[in-house]
């Protein structure tokens, strides 16, 4: 069993380190015959093609009383398209070992495809069918809806989901970001096939389409494949605007009573936007406080010294219209208050004092070195290229990233630590934490 688990498995976008191996990795900008742009990395060592793409407009496009619409589309898109019913479509995929995936975040609808090179035309044809001619047969929709409702029903007693959902709902009330992409037991039954078709019509379009391809394929063939899958989509999407927003409820603590031996804690506050000049400094400071390695302050204080939890960490999470810093842990009920007090005092200390020069140097070294590790498979490289494009970081970001990290000074780190952690936190707890009650000194 892993020595460390990320206590928060649902974070929409965490910052991925990208490889400098990358200096060896050539990214090509390509344009398909019909004019669709994409990034391509040629990789001859394995006989496969990995595609990763994103449309703007994720679950933030869902109507409040129909939240979960985009997610239901994603879950139903491979249930038959064109002349192929669900059975025929799934057989065509598996007969050629083609892997298609669809998933939804708050801002984007994303897709993945992996195929052996010999079946790539078939793979991109099947993708086109799903994107342009989904059947949405009643039988398939009801079956998938039943699966989603079963999963939502399970979540009603799962402390991880309870703490997490409560955090988002409290931080972003009356905003699409406050609603889970999966919807709720109340909203998922309301979604009609007309809602799903409306989502497809508004979101699946060629403008604001981001594509990355990695594989044993050249630019010409890649361009043809892109047109095969995406060329017949409408030229323009039709999205509802999403208002800019910041997290509310800072200073509040919400305890959700559920009968489990271990209390689950979600904590966090406002973060820093991806395009903010202070982003890299914030990223480093967060790594020092609660990032994913075994050397963060929270890991040391909560786990190593006191054995209060198996895992504790926090991450920067950013969207197009908001940014937060969000963390989590799970601790025994009679020590939850202790664990939370340590997290709060360490966060406060980071805000007031910032990191030391040694910590900053170690974190920079880690963040530069670990860059290569996240680019060790075609699918991961393709996913990362899509993220770089969505975040508008530029095709040379991979080369520039090391220098951007090096440029952060101790003074920058201290200033940004105050900005990031000086505002206090919203805390949600699910379980039966001893001596810990909800408190309401909200902003």
């Amino acid at each position, binding site marked *: 069993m892993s020595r460390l688990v990320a206590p928060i498995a649902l974070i929409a976008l965490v910052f991925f380190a990208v490889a400098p191996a990358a200096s060896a990795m050539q990214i090509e900008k390509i344009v398909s015959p019909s004019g669709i742009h994409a990034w391509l990395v040629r990789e001859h060592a*394995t006989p496969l093609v990995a595609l990763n793409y994103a449309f703007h407009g994720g679950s933030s496009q869902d109507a409040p009383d129909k939240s979960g619409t985009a997610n239901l589309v994603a879950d139903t898109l491979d249930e038959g398209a064109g002349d192929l019913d669900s059975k025929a479509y799934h057989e065509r995929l598996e007969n050629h*070992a083609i892997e298609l995936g669809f998933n939804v975040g708050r801002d984007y609808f994303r897709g993945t495809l992996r195929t052996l090179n010999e079946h790539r035309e078939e793979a991109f044809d099947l993708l086109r069918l799903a994107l342009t001619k989904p059947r949405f047969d009643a039988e398939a929709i009801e079956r998938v809806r039943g*699966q989603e409702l079963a999963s939502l029903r399970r979540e009603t007693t799962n402390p991880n989901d309870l703490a997490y959902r409560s955090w988002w709902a409290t931080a972003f009330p009356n905003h699409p970001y406050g609603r889970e992409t999966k919807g709720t037991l109340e909203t998922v039954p309301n979604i009609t096939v007309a809602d799903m078709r409306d989502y497809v019509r508004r979101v699946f379009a060629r403008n604001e389409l981001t594509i990355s391809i990695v594989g044993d394929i050249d630019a010409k063939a890649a361009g043809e494949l892109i047109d095969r899958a995406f060329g017949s989509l409408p030229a323009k999407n039709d999205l509802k605007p999403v208002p800019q927003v910041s997290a509310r409820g800072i200073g509040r603590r919400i305890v959700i009573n559920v009968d489990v*031996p271990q209390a689950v804690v979600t904590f966090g506050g406002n973060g820093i936007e991806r395009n903010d000049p202070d982003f890299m400094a914030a990223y480093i400071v967060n790594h020092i406080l609660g990032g994913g390695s075994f050397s963060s302050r929270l890991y040391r204080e909560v786990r190593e010294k*006191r054995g209060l939890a198996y895992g504790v960490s926090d991450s920067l999470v950013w969207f197009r219209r908001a940014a937060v810093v969000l963390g989590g842990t799970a601790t025994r009920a009679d020590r939850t208050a202790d664990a939370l007090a340590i997290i709060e005092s360490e966060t406060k200390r980071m805000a007031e004092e910032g990191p030391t020069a040694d910590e900053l140097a170690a974190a920079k070294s880690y963040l530069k070195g670990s860059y290569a590790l996240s680019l060790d498979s075609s699918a991961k490289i393709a996913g990362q290229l899509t993220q770089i494009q969505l975040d508008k970081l530029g095709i040379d970001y991979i080369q520039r990233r090391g220098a951007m990290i090096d440029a952060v000074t101790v003074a920058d780190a201290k200033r940004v630590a105050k900005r990031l952690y000086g505002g206090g936190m919203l805390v949600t707890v699910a379980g039966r934490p001893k001596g810990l009650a909800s408190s309401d000194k909200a902003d």
Partner: protein
Amino acid sequence: MPVRNRAFAVAALLIAAAAAQPTLAAESGGAKVADYKLDNGLELVVIPDHRTPVVTHMIWYKVGSADETPGKSGLAHFLEHLMFKGTAKNPAGLFSQVVARIGGHENAFTSTDYTAYFQRVPRDDLKQVMGFEADRMTGLQLTDAVVLPEREVILEEQNQRVGNNPRARLGEQIDAALFLNHPYGRPVIGWRHEMEGLTRDDAIGFYRRFYGPNNAVVVIAGDVEPAAALKLAEETYGKVARRNGIPPRARPQEPPPVAVRSLTLADPRVEMPMMQRAYLVPSFRTAKPGQSEALEVLAHILGSGSNSRLYRTLVVDKNVAVSAGAWYDSTAFDMSKFGVYGVPGPNTTLPEFEAATDAVIADLVAKGVTPEELERAKTKLIADAVYAHDNQATMARWYGSALTTGWTVEDVQRWPDRIRKVTAAEVQDAARHWLDKRRSVTGFLIKDKRPQAEKRS
């Protein structure tokens, strides 16, 4: 938790068997896998992949929870945690700090049959992490000051993985009922009342008994040549003396299963009842030639994905289930498990769901599988092996789990060939022979509707 290799992760390679020489296997246009044995008994497997300048370095000890002394459940995993607490030469935390400073990733995991530690680092840092890992192979030092807080950590891990998770609790109960005599019936994480009593001396004793070069396999995947990796291994691991007296892996074996068993776990948090069943079946090591591969294909046809018999019949056609599937784990040193599971739909009871599941299995036993199903399953399983080549960490993990559960490098490399040879008759025979309910335990997870006491531990 046991690591389950669902996708058997290796493509077909030809192998030139040789004794003292490394075994090198050339793959069409791709990497060669080398297999060496050092003088002190350490096995080294190198899987070159030069696409990015990083390496995955793993050490796999052939010891897991099934090797614990009765009464000390959780000890193998506890020791895994304590291996990060420093040695005579390298104080606590130094190894992790060095890995972090070079931007590496590290972690460790424990199964019934193995305990593994890994680092993923830039190519040029390989020797350094090999040096640290060789040092903690015999140099571990423990004090109560670090052992006692870590015992709290594993208790919290037990809460997180099992206590807070009704499905995991059901899985523990099924294993305990399935294995009448074999220690696979104990949870890897341990039983809480025994975990609470584990001591420093328990951990050190276990360590001295089982950790040594002659009980370990090092797997290195990534940007390194086999000869260079061998040289580094000789300079690091090669200096560690052989451990004498490591006991053979002779665990108490299972008697022939004779009784259909079922159990019910009621938990107040259950919102969706479910059924999990495990059959006692052979692993690759304990199977006759071809049996394990037939079980692999059977599991795929019966219960993997949207085209599988269980999903299509129970979820799509009859609409009695929300989910349904099957799996098989070939990587166990002793007998292994074949699993069947599902969540009934809102208008279906668990007994109805079980009967429907049994009918799907009975139909497969009676009529066998179609040529299309067989072909599709083989295509998918073999493609998974090709996809696995795209990720060095996946490859390292697959070789490690195989080599610590009785496979050879050649067995791993020829796995796709053996899958290709499986016939429809073999799949039907496997279903008839192994999916006999007398070999199984069926567990039902239901909601506990009794009023709850205020306190739970």
